[in-house]
């Protein structure tokens, strides 16, 4: 050994070395053979079995029952082992030093420091206490919740809201970003949200329908994911439908500006329509039905109200004196007048099932196409018949799959068990609304005290000082990033609980690491609507790094105000899971045999074989008096006196065609920014979930960026080739995306899937988004005074080939630092 050179190492730390060296990280341990096991669990992407070896998840395979597993299962390892995981509780440095008085304009561009769990939870608690006592419940918004990970016990929304609710009252939301307009208008029309209602079963549709109109819905894309553990059974029916289309038994027409994945799967016809003009086309169809007396007057007389108040508007005898003829509509929607008539006649001649998607109502006046769709169906008179009528949700969570009729396991409770459990009883919102429409919270921060109309009431937007987000990423799902950035500069405190460094976390002050759903024991229903079974979500690995389950995080928070016993009801994780199972077993005891919990946990799943067919609105059709709809009158309301009584100019007593704030193909604003940006649900993620999974992202990203899909014509016009980087911009913002040129897209239409993570180049207002979040450029505007829902699909942009050196993608990192000044 070369001693001479080594001599510098002698006694190198000297006698005081102990002060410089911390405690050992290793301890003697007898060797333990790493055993290999298979476990079962579920997810939004379906059930799977996982092979665990050496304490890590090494392999995933779809659960055998699933005949059409999604390739997104492959992305799960990428979620667990993503380098974007939040590993420790972190606090924004500037905020740590100054708390609520910290300069909020540095939010998002500041350094973080690591703190212990105790410190982090103390800070969280102290902030809750400060905001409740200095302001009041109106200053705390803990109601913004979203898609969470699956699992009934650990559902993070419930945990956060129960825990914060045990401390005091807070602002809540109503509605959601997915279906805000639809779920608000439809109760007035057909008496239920429709968007979340069970739909007519596929076997009945396949058996009875002669025509299926897919109106702006992409079943094959969206049925890959489910609210609970998805079974993918609906794909069996899509395959059967494919065969019937091929045989000529069923005619399927996809009315969509874009050739959808479903259209390709079914190999069915497409009817192109200009974006955002569907209502004009539908009105013209109604005109045809009425003028050619193809409508079902008996049905209208028996089951509907207000047709006579509506039809004058169609026939040109209304206020605007414009007849909604096919010729009139053709000018707006770009569909040939003859073709409109032909479609109307076809639908009246055959048993026709109308199926709408949700993208249509995520636009300005998004209430109108849904209402008008119901009226078309009413005029056809097939509502309540198998294979007829209208559906708004066949693309969602296996709706339409014959259901078992079994009861699903309940969930960890969202609310405190008793109001007395609240530490701060103060429920004085000082005139502010305690519940606000889901998409209007940014308005509230920017313009507190503003009064807005909402669904027949007046909402006074609260002066929000603090927000708590859990498993929720508004920096993906809310519109207009730069406006949002301005709003966040007004907040005093933001707490984010998540497992990965989303943009929301980067814009927070306290960031708490939750573990993923794969690091905890839980229970879920297998098949959200069909309830095909109950699945054990067996913990695959222990929580990584310093992450904890939501249950543990919130129990510890509650311990700080001595409510932890009330919070947990004295039960631990497994006791909760077992009790949810037991309650479910009890509820099913007359219908299905379920084993004891221990056995169930060992088996991993219990399946129910019942396949009950259902016809939407059949009971109403059979006896409208005894089984009325949930509308004010109990009938289908073609004209709603109630809505008319609100006196809104943007949602009148019956469906109307209204021009949009921005519309392509010759509409307003198209001279400046000519392209319509469609930001629909992604094909390879669940909203923003899994975007951080690199193995999955590599399958679709273009030069590491989110794809922008466009037509060959547009590509040519802007000098863009497939694979180029594209700058997408309008007056609201700019982003980088990777071009995918495809025949599926018509001229004037581009698509960027929502859920792409936001990663600005720097923290300046208007900064270029480096990954491709479409909401960097979307419009933040309420759909109407009725629903105040999101209008993300009312958005025009320009594109150009990106020149120069592309900035590195910053979307998936931790907080970025700007050089201290």
């Amino acid at each position, binding site marked *: 050994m070369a001693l001479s050179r080594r001599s510098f190492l002698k006694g190198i730390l000297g006698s005081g070395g102990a002060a410089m060296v911390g405690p050992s990280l290793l301890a003697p341990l007898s060797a333990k053979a790493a055993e290999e096991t298979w476990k079962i669990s579920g997810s939004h992407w379906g059930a799977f079995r996982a092979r665990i070896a050496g304490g890590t998840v090494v392999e995933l395979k779809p659960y055998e029952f699933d005949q059409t597993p999604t390739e997104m299962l492959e992305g799960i390892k990428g979620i667990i082992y993503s380098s974007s995981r939040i590993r420790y509780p972190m606090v924004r440095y500037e905020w740590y030093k100054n708390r609520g008085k910290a300069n909020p304009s540095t939010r998002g561009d500041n350094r973080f420091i690591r703190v212990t769990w105790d410190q982090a939870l103390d800070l969280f608690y102290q902030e809750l206490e400060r905001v409740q006592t200095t302001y009041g419940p109106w200053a705390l918004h803990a*109601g913004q919740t979203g898609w969470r990970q699956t699992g009934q016990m650990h559902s993070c929304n419930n945990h956060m809201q129960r825990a914060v609710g045990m401390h005091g009252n807070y602002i809540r939301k109503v509605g959601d970003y997915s279906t805000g307009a639809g779920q608000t208008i439809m109760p007035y029309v057909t008496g239920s949200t429709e968007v979340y209602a069970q739909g007519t079963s596929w076997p009945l549709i396949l058996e009875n329908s002669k025509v299926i109109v897919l109106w702006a819905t992409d079943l094959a894309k969206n049925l890959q994911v489910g609210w609970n553990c998805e079974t993918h059974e609906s794909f069996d029916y899509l395959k059967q439908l494919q065969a019937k289309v091929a045989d000529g038994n069923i005619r399927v027409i996809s009315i969509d500006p874009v050739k959808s994945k479903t259209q390709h799967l079914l190999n069915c016809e497409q009817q192109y329509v200009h974006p955002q003009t569907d209502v004009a086309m539908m009105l013209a169809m109604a005109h045809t039905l009425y003028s050619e007396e193809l409508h079902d007057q008996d049905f209208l007389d028996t089951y509907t109200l207000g047709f006579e108040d509506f039809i004058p508007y169609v026939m040109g005898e209304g206020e605007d004196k414009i007849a909604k003829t096919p010729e009139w509509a053709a000018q707006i929607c770009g569909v040939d007048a003859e073709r409109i008539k032909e479609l109307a006649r076809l639908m009246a001649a055959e048993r026709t099932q109308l199926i709408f998607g949700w993208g249509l109502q995520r636009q300005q006046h998004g209430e109108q196409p849904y209402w008008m769709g119901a009226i078309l169906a009413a005029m056809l008179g097939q509502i309540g018949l198998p294979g007829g009528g209208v559906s708004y949700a066949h693309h969602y969570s296996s709706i339409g799959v014959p259901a078992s009729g079994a009861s699903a396991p*309940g969930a960890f409770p969202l609310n405190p068990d008793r109001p007395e459990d609240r530490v701060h009883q103060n429920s004085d919102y000082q005139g502010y609304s305690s519940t606000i429409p889901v998409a209007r919270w940014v308005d509230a921060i920017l313009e507190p005290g503003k009064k807005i109309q909402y669904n027949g009431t007046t909402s006074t937007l609260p002066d929000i000082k603090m927000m708590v987000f859990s498993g929720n990423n508004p920096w993906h799902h809310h519109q207009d990033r730069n406006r949002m950035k301005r709003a966040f500069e007004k907040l005093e405190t933001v707490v984010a609980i998540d497992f990965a460094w989303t943009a929301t976390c980067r814009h927070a002050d306290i960031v708490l690491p939750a573990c993923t759903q794969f690091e905890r024991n839980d229970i879920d229903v297998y098949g959200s609507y069909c309830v095909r079974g109950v699945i054990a979500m067996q913990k695959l690995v222990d929580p990584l790094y310093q992450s904890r389950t939501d249950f543990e995080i919130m129990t510890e928070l509650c311990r700080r105000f001595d409510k932890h016993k009330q919070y947990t009801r004295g039960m631990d994780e497994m006791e909760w899971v077992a009790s949810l199972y037991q309650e479910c077993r009890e509820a099913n005891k007359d219908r299905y045999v379920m084993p004891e919990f221990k056995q169930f946990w060992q088996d991993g799943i219990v399946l129910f074989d019942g396949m009950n067919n259902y016809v939407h609105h059949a009971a109403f059709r059979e006896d409208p008096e005894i089984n009325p709809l949930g509308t004010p*009158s109990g009938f289908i309301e073609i004209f709603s006196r109630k809505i008319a009584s609100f006196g809104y100019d943007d949602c009148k007593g019956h469906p109307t065609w209204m021009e949009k704030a921005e519309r392509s193909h010759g509409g307003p604003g198209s001279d400046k920014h000519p392209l319509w940006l469609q930001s629909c649900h992604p094909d390879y993620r669940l909203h923003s979930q899994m975007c951080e999974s690199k193995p999955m992202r590599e399958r679709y990203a273009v030069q590491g960026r989110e794809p922008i899909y466009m037509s060959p014509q547009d590509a040519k016009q802007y000098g863009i080739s497939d694979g180029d980087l594209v700058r997408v911009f309008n007056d609201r913002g700019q982003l980088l995306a990777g071009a995918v040129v495809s025949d599926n897209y018509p001229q004037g239409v581009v698509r960027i899937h929502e859920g792409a993570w936001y990663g600005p180049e720097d923290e300046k207002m208007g900064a270029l988004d480096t990954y491709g979040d479409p909401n960097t450029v979307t419009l933040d505007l309420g759909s109407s005074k009725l629903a105040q829902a999101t209008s993300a699909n009312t958005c025009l942009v320009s594109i150009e080939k990106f020149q120069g050196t592309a900035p590195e993608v910053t979307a998936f990192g931790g907080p970025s630092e700007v050089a201290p000044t």
Partner: protein
Amino acid sequence: MLSKLKALWRTMTRPAKHISLGVLTLGGFLAGVIFWGGFNTALEASNTEEFCIGCHEMRDNVYVELQQTVHWSNHSGVRATCPDCHVPHNWTDKIARKMQASKELWGTIFGTIDTREKFLAKRLELATHEWDRLSANGSLECKNCHEYASMDWDAMSEVARTQMEQAAERDQSCIDCHKGIAHELPESMAAASGALAGLQRQATSRFNPGQQYFSIRQLPLFTDSALSQEAGILNSGSVITVVAQQGDALQVEIDGWRKTKGFGRVINEEFGQNIREVTLEKEVATDDSMIQGFEVQEDPLTGLPWQRVSFQLWMGKDDLVDDREILWQEASELYVKNCSTCHSQPEEAHFDTNTWPGMWAGMLSFVNLDGDTQELVLKYLQKHSSDYSDGHH
């Protein structure tokens, strides 16, 4: 023979000539002591479990069931026997209970419940006797062992503590909540969902004419006191006024409003509000002699005319409570508990009365509630909707 008896009577009624007062008293005293001892021994013997399960009705039914419960086997080793719970410890009541047992003797002799089927068929009636007794005495027999004052709240789970503290505050009778703790519940009750079973335990058994009562679940209505001709269904959580009683039947008056479109089969609680009270059979709804009609008003929000009506029908005495708050409390708990699994849970006052049925229908796919309970919670939501909050109440 007669003369002998007469002689005996004479001897008995006259003062003793030959036996001294001391001997007589001593003899009587001794006989008394022996008698008292014997009486008590016999009484005690009839107060043992062995005696109770001496007949197979007890041994094969309730006794077997007891063995499955905590009152039979638990970690403390204390065990309850039949008389601990079923025989009053107070002397008078105990003797009365013993006399009452003559019915059981009768039953044994004539085989009233000599098969499992007969027993099951009669279980509700038998159980009701015991429940009534325990309700009335505040579950005295339970409290001989279990005292509210001796309960360690901290050792209880959060749920148990909450419930127990509330019960203790009112010194509630144990049996109110703990029916079925030692034997199986009657089938009809076990079938009801947990929630409604809880309410059924609080059902009223005494009715006063002119007073209002509220239905726990959907109940059949009849045109006759024999309860043979069905007239319709009273919805969960609906209000009726008792007019008269006849045996097991109540004559009730119902007031409400109905739309004039159709046959008028659906009776709603208030004008313009779709809060369903009764669904009538078509024949009844269209029978003017049965339904008294009053003024007609047009509902401005739908343009439909509504008519105020009143009618009298017959119904059974089960599943009615005298305080609607009992129903609302249960329904509110059910709503909070069952409905927090989805995107979010709207507050009661978030929607108006006529919007709730539609919203509720959309939420039902995700909750484990049976039909009766669904109706009850819906009614709760409607009656606490925006129409009834903000001072409208």
